[in-house]
């Protein structure tokens, strides 16, 4: 032994020596700082003394001034206003000081933390020393997609009447803003908040917040919800009540994109029920309160990864004559039907344009030059937000999706949306569902394509036979030639079976597609004069008319009956990429507008972040942290993601902003000109009248084969041609 007594070591149960000594104190020591501050009884009186003195002094001074100055009182008040203010300020400051000292200073601060908002398709890994999969690792578009077009709100739920379950009708709100171009956002909240809740709401295509104007948590398209802190049992009982699991003890829970509950272990598990992981509804319980959220996520490298509810839809637009008969340059609009007025630009959620293969091209995601625009330049997937919260009973959608044979309502994130293909509108009022397949459902290959489609919803085998059936027990999903199968998404990985582990796995479903059978018509038009003789060389112009009799869009082609039989032939001017050669003698209409006048995709407006000067990119903006970073592999939050999902390219022909923007349909006009002389015209409300019937598996529905007369034209639909007879 050295003779020294070994100092006590912590963590052991040994008996601690207790020194019987007084604490430091006067006169040898003077107090420098104490918490809580010392408040001896006499000090309270002393602290009020300045207030009394100040008030007394003020009264005496005013009285003396009135007596000695001879000024009227009102004038005097204005004269001494500055002096009075100073005195009052001093007085108030002293009172305030008393108030502050009774409360720990820490209660006046805010806590803050970082979020990174992505989707459940996000492929991320952890930075060394951090807990969350912030670092991008994906190689495809969904795997690297950052959710940026959203508004973020913070709420504190309070329960003043101590009801159980808590009604969630009392809350405080803070607007946090929108994420930067890589999905990062820093949030802050007062330290006295509990049940701290982050609500992420989708924006419109044009970047307008949806559902934030009422300053209520249960408005808008809520794509992500996170509550953290010491969460009250009454909140649990209200927010995530499930009749099958009625008692949710405080802990960590996730309600996934499939609507299923997951209970985490003691720590939040970012890979629970892979590959979905966390979100879109997360409840995180900390025994130490919301401060732990700050502690764990105050660094962007350890940001909370908020996996919002989005599906990535692949659209394919073609005529109903053949799935290979692609519609090129069709514009796809997705309108919200639940949360926005139809005449509001906020109703437009997404837009895309089809390429020569008829597949959608999403033009909103732009990538920096050094990554090459080609990286995702031909991205065919359209991200669409989903509603995760039942806003009417203030609970998440949960329970999953019922089997087709049942009538169980969908308990998973979804959205009532309408898809419109411009200009020939294809209106459906369908629900978007998340997940790659429907529980119990099966897939079927689409003949002649590489795609598969679910046997569900509005995609009957033969639309002529069953045009209006409702399938799957899901209400509001009509089937028929004008409906679309939107009840699925495009998973980014193979073999997902997300509803139940018991269902058989699909080995490859990446090409699941939303097939759009658009009402594009073919017709071989033949012109006869009043004597039933063929009119070779007649010029045919097709136009659409608005309800106010204004000629709206001239269709692309002006056709000529070149053949000796007076019929259109080799109608090259109607050929677009994707046009099937077997229809070369037929006019394809309507299939677009005069692109030369209305412009085209203008890549010069593409967003290049490196050239952007918006505040978010400045050093003092979201990337303030870069100034402090010492770690070489961390330059700035945007470098985590290496992609830039931020801005809106200007597409000049995308002029339809709302559901009511389209000109009211007034009819269809046919103009026939013979030489430089006679002109004939007639309007028909229904363009189907001149549609050619092709007897294939894709035929038009049971429209009448008839003869219609109007003005100077009689139209007669025959087996392989449409006769326009002039009178």
């Amino acid at each position, binding site marked *: 032994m050295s003779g020294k007594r070994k100092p006590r070591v912590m963590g052991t149960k040994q008996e*601690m020596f207790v020194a019987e*000594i007084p*604490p430091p104190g006067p006169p040898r020591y003077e107090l420098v700082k104490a918490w809580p501050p010392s408040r*001896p009884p006499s000090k309270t009186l002393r602290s009020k003394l300045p207030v009394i003195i100040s008030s007394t002094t003020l009264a005496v001074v005013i009285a003396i001034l009135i007596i000695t100055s001879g000024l009227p009182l009102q004038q005097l008040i204005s004269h001494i206003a500055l002096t009075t203010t100073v005195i009052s300020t001093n007085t108030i400051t002293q009172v305030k000081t008393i108030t502050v000292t009774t409360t*720990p200073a*820490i209660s006046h601060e805010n806590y803050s933390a970082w979020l990174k908002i992505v989707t459940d398709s996000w492929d991320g890994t952890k930075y060394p020393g951090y807990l969350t999969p912030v670092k991008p690792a994906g190689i495809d578009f969904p795997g690297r997609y950052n959710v940026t077009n959203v508004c973020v709100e913070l709420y504190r739920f309070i329960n003043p009447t101590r009801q159980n379950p808590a009604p969630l009708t009392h809350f405080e709100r803070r607007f946090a803003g929108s994420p930067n171009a890589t999905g990062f956002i820093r949030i802050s909240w007062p330290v006295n908040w509990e049940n701290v809740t982050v609500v992420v709401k989708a924006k419109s295509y044009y970047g307008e917040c949806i559902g934030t104007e009422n300053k209520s948590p249960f408005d808008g398209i809520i794509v992500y919800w996170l509550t953290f802190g010491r969460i009250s049992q009454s909140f649990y009982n209200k927010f995530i009540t499930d009749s099958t699991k009625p008692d949710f003890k405080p802990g960590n829970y996730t309600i996934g994109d499939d609507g299923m509950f997951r209970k985490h272990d003691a720590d939040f598990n970012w890979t629970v029920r892979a590959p979905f992981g966390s979100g879109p509804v997360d409840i995180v319980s900390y025994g*130490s309160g919301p*401060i732990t959220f700050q*502690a764990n996520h105050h660094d962007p490298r350890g940001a909370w990864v908020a996996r919002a509810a989005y599906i990535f839809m692949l659209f394919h637009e073609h005529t109903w004559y053949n799935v290979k008969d692609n519609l090129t340059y069709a514009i796809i609009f997705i309108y919200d039907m639940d949360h926005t007025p139809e005449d509001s630009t906020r109703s437009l959620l997404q837009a895309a344009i089809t390429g020569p293969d008829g597949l959608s091209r999403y033009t909103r995601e732009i990538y920096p030059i050094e990554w090459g625009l080609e990286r995702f330049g031909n991205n065919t997937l359209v991200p669409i937000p989903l509603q995760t919260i039942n806003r009417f009973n203030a609970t998440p959608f949960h329970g999953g999706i019922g089997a087709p044979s049942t009538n169980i309502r969908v308990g998973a994130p979804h959205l009532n949306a309408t898809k419109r293909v411009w200009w020939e509108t294809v209106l459906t009022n369908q629900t978007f569902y998340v997940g790659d397949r429907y529980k119990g459902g099966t897939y079927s290959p689409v003949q002649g394509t590489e795609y598969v489609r679910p046997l569900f919803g509005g995609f009957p085998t033969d639309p002529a036979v069953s045009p209006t059936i409702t399938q799957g027990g899901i209400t509001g999903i009509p089937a028929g030639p004008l409906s679309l199968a939107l009840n699925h998404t495009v998973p980014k990985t193979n073999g997902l079976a997300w509803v139940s582990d018991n269902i058989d796995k699909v080995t490859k479903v990446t090409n699941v597609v939303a097939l759009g059978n658009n009402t594009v018509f073919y017709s071989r038009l033949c012109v006869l004069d009043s004597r039933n003789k063929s009119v070779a060389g007649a010029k045919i112009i097709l136009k659409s008319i608005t309800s106010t009799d204004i000629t709206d869009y001239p269709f692309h082609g002006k056709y000529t009956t070149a053949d000796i039989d007076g019929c259109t032939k080799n109608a090259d001017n109607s050929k677009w990429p994707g046009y099937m050669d077997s229809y070369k003698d037929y006019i394809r209409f309507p299939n677009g507008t005069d692109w030369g006048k209305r412009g085209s995709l203008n890549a010069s407006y593409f967003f290049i972040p490196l050239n952007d000067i918006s505040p978010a990119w400045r050093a003092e903006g979201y990337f303030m942290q870069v100034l402090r970073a*010492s770690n070489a592999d961390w330059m700035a939050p945007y470098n985590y993601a290496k992609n830039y999902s931020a801005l809106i390219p200007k597409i000049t022909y995308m002029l339809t902003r709302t559901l009511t923007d389209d000109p009211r349909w007034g009819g269809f006009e046919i103009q026939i000109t013979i030489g430089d002389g006679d002109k004939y015209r007639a309007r028909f409300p229904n363009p189907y009248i001149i549609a050619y019937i092709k007897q294939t598996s894709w035929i038009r529905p049971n429209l009448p084969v008839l003869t219609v007369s109007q003005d100077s034209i009689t139209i007669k639909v025959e087996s392989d041609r449409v006769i326009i007879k002039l009178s």
Partner: protein
Amino acid sequence: MSWHRYQVHSFDYVIDGIYLECKKALPNETIGFLVGMYCRWRGEYFTLIDDYIPVGGTSSEYHVIMDAESLASAIQILEKKYNDDRHSIVGWYHSHPGYGIFLSDTDIKSQITFFNQPYHVALVVDPVRNKFGFFKLSLHNEPVLVSYAIWREVHER
């Protein structure tokens, strides 16, 4: 004056020294041990901190790591410096540069693991905001701010 009712007593040179260590480490966090005594006076217990031992542990801008080697090193220093049975390691300190006074989940785990005696305290210093606070854990292992008094010796002039 019932000064002994403060749960922690310390001295200006201790706090100033720890502040200096924390500021030198900026922007990184820093960590160390609090040295002192467990005391009783007129039936009230308090922790008296009269020294500290900085630790050259692993740290970065956002975290510090306490390990067994650091602890062993601190005990060696303590043995050399104090030849009495009163002084011991009564807690630990670490900095939160710029993000406030609190105990993170990791901090709480450290407190539970290494400093689970009633006299053990955790001192958190924010050298950017010039704030500090002492913590103990409640019976439910929740961090609780504890009262403290910082003293300065009065010298004859």
